[in-house]
């Protein structure tokens, strides 16, 4: 018979090896000849390793979903992209930021729309220089912006194919489509921004495609397409530098 009563909390601490919170020596001694205490101990016994293993079988989906790094240093993405678990991180760590900005909607839709593009979607668009200028004038006016074919010449590695006006929640969304030398569709999407401060260029992945996102002079930009992060980053930087 034990001399003192041990609480369930003390017995639990003993089982957990938390001896700062359990009179371990007394419990150990009492267990040697106290069947009632042994029974209480048994009633508290669980297999911690089995519990841990059962829970550890649960895993988040590792499928990458549209991600967006708002106002984060670009090097964050670059660093993460070098590790195998980047997909887990891209799982949506920054989706909250998208929600905060309210930009996620149009970017996600634009990315999903562009994901449907193939080389054939754009290959047949062949226009004269005058036709391109006319189309750009008409389309860019919808967002109050002026863009010329000459201005797009900074995108030296991709060829302009067409421009069209889309709409997201009643707001005009400009989509300029390009094809790379290897036939990869690339889109530059522009819409008016509520963020007057602007946001630095950030590389990320949306719909599994290399993407660059930034805000400048009252407009939000998304450049997206293919898997070549370096190409998209270089093109985006050229656009930022020239103020396109």
């Amino acid at each position: 018979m034990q001399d003192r009563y041990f609480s369930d909390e003390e017995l639990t601490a003993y089982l957990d090896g938390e001896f700062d919170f359990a009179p371990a020596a007394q419990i150990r001694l009492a267990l040697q000849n106290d069947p009632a205490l042994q029974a209480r101990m048994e009633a508290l016994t669980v297999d911690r390793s089995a519990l841990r293993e059962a829970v550890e079988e649960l895993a988040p989906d590792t499928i990458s979903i549209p991600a967006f790094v708002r106002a984060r240093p670009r090097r964050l993405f670059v660093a993460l992209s070098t590790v195998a678990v980047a997909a887990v991180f891209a799982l949506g760590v920054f989706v909250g930021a998208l929600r905060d900005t309210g930009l996620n909607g149009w970017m996600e839709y634009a990315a999903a729309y562009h994901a449907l593009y193939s080389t054939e979607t754009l290959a047949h668009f062949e226009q004269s220089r005058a036709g391109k200028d006319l189309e750009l004038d008409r389309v860019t006016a919808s967002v109050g912006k002026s863009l010329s074919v000459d201005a797009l010449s900074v995108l030296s590695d991709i060829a302009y194919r067409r421009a069209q006006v889309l709409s997201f929640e009643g707001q005009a969304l400009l989509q300029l489509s390009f094809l790379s030398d290897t036939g990869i569709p690339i889109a530059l999407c522009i819409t008016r921004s509520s963020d007057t401060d602007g946001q630095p260029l950030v590389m990320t992945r949306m719909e599994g495609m290399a993407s660059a996102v930034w805000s400048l002079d009252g407009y939000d930009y998304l450049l997206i397409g293919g898997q070549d992060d370096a190409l998209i980053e270089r093109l985006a930087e050229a656009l930022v530098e020239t103020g396109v």
Partner: protein
Amino acid sequence: MLFRPRKPDARDIGEGLVQIFPRLWRYALALSGSRAEADELTQSACLRALERSTQFDPSTSLDKWVFRIIHNLWMSDRRRHKVRMGQGLVSIDVVDIVDPGPSADHQMERRELLQAILDLPEAQRQAAMIVYVEGYSYREASMILGIPIGTVMSRLAAARTNLARQMGGRKGGHRARSVL
């Protein structure tokens, strides 16, 4: 000249988050009982950690810091939305969160164990997850959960009683491997 550890920046925090993301997500899943909510809660916690990266003390542990963030987010969300009240119980069915797979015996056992944890009252479940699954000490659990150590102990004692009772009817498999 004294060496001072470099203050971690968002990149450091981000790299650390990559490592602990699955653990955070599992805890979020145990809290919410929903994959979708676990996704959102974990994302919110990671974002909060990045936003507050300058507040992180590099002499402490990132995982404990973010576990505390995710716990606080969940608790404040519960208060705000006043959901899942009533004895603090969240009804979670393991079949909703575990992909169907081969019905091997050991897998059935795992699922029963998982269900036993999920069936715990929320306060007990939180303590059991933090101490028994994540392996934190009582002191660390007290910090993460924001409760006194005595409360951690009483929740764990209750959790042990419930878990042992639920698993008591099982054939001795788990007990046979039990060391504590």
